[in-house]
């Protein structure tokens, strides 16, 4: 089975003190470390696991700058066979434009399955995968937590709300966006990344693709971003750990939890 896995490098924002940039269109990213999008890490692992089972190739694709090649090399170290970086130049990218560019690179290629993460950790849209499937004209499923291929189709599990999964049969070629927890992504060593640097990494410029002005026109635009008001929310308990612990025990008692 030939698999294409679309991945993205994102800033780590979980414990960062985020500040808004001067244009109020995004956060300041200069000081933030960047990593592979968590969902995409699972997607790469799933692609490699499927390839180990069925043969074929895994190609990792990202849209980004030279710095973003870091995650492609990581994917190669995890077992991907080839990598493609699509250089967007100074194009503005929304979910539509991103999916349109990916489609132009992927279409016509020899693939059975395209994997993406369910969403990216930065803008949390969760739309590139399903849009890409529609551009390619192939079957699609979102939030996949299990893939069992059988010839020209697969039995898959899709995560629904409330601790429920749906089981579906889907025909190849297909696009699936992967939910976290579908597998246990393997560890990548620095040695492994160094070794993988011998594998093929191709760079394509969006300018060389057969895309019209309309294909590259954003459908949505971020007008402004802002931090939620600080005054909202919790009463902050201050003091040393011992005082904090006492206060917590008091709150438990006040709310009918006997300790």
């Amino acid at each position, binding site marked *: 089975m030939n698999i294409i896995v679309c991945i993205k490098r994102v800033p780590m924002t*979980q414990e960062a003190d985020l500040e808004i940039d001067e244009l109020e269109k995004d956060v300041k990213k200069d000081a933030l470390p960047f990593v592979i999008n968590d969902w995409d890490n699972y997607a790469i692992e799933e692609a490699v696991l499927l390839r180990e089972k069925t043969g074929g190739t895994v190609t990792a694709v990202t849209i980004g700058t030279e710095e973003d090649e870091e995650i492609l090399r990581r994917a190669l170290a995890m077992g991907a066979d080839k990598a493609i970086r699509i250089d967007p130049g100074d194009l503005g990218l929304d979910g539509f434009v991103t999916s349109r560019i990916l489609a132009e690179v992927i279409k016509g290629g020899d693939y059975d399955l395209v994997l993406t993460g369910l969403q990216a950790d930065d803008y949390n849209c969760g739309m590139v995968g399903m849009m890409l499937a529609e551009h390619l004209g192939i079957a699609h499923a979102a939030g996949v937590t299990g893939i069992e291929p059988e010839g020209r189709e697969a039995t898959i599990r*899709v995560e629904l*709300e409330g601790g*429920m999964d749906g089981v579906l049969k889907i025909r190849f070629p297909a696009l699936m966006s992967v939910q976290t927890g579908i597998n246990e992504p393997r560890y990548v060593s620095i040695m492994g990344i160094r070794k993988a640097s011998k594998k093929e990494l191709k760079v394509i410029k969006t300018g060389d693709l057969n895309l019209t002005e309309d294909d590259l026109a954003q459908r949505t635009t971020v*007008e402004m971003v802002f931090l939620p008001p600080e005054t909202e929310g919790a*009463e902050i308990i201050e003091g040393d750990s011992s005082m904090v*612990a006492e206060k*917590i025990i008091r709150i438990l008692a006040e*709310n009918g939890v006997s300790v």
Partner: protein
Amino acid sequence: MADIFVVVEHRKGEVRDITFEMLFKASELCKESSHNLTAILLGGRDSAFLDDIAPWADRVITLEDERLENYNPDLYKEILHRLIQKHHPFLTFIGHTSFGMGFAPALSVKSGYPIATDCIDILIDNGRPMVTRQIYNGKVFSKDSFRESEGYIITLRQAVCTPEKTEERRGEVFKSELPPDLPEPRQEFMEFVEAGAGEVDISQADLLVSIGRGIGEEENVATVKELADLLGGVISCSRPVVDKNWLPSYHQVGTSGKSVKPKVYLALGISGAFQHVAGIAGAGTVIAVNKDKKAPIFRVSDYGIVDDLFKVVEALKVKLSG
């Protein structure tokens, strides 16, 4: 006067809450803009949903077929695309749920109507919608506009509005047959599978001691488990802990896990993604401990402690065993 479409979401014979949340949001927009509220109900034969839906909408367009009883993204997308071509709705609401995430962006490409996903608010500004979203896992808010179009698609986050029926709408029902030339769907629904029941039922606990990504290492789970035992509570967790197999999935709180209603919810190292927070709406008092003072969990907590969770856990253990 254009339509605002609301795509009804149902599962196992029940209309899901997100449907009424969308109908409520759409009715508010209809009041401001004098649009027509049209619910789109795609379901199996003789589904009993019509009576639930009709009072919320000006009209209901319903298509009934066995193939629509369970969710099928190909059929939903194709039928909605044809309804959009016929009625040119100004807005189409779809839930930002597993169901909606599986076909709404594809419908946007097919119909040419731009989409914004996971919206928490929508307003109409100069005849065009403007949406509010949360980015970076709820730490930042974003206002997004659309390229000009005849119609727009919006997926609404679950549980951001509380439906309140302020007026009765006389939902006129239009039954319509499935188009005969629908393409063969490329996928087939097989069955629902419940995530396994476990030794504990977190939805029944009075006190939940809940851990998230901040727990860091698997060994630390036992440390917090000890605290939960000392307090007479039950240990629960957010998604990353289950993804790493550090706790079985029946401990998971949130949209993909369980909704809980403890008297006290002690959240340790949980950042507060909406998928998690939606599961604790029924909790009495929420106490959060997190190193990140801007973690979204503090916005939904009654009490917050900005500190290393292990310091707080150790101090509690000392008090309780001392």
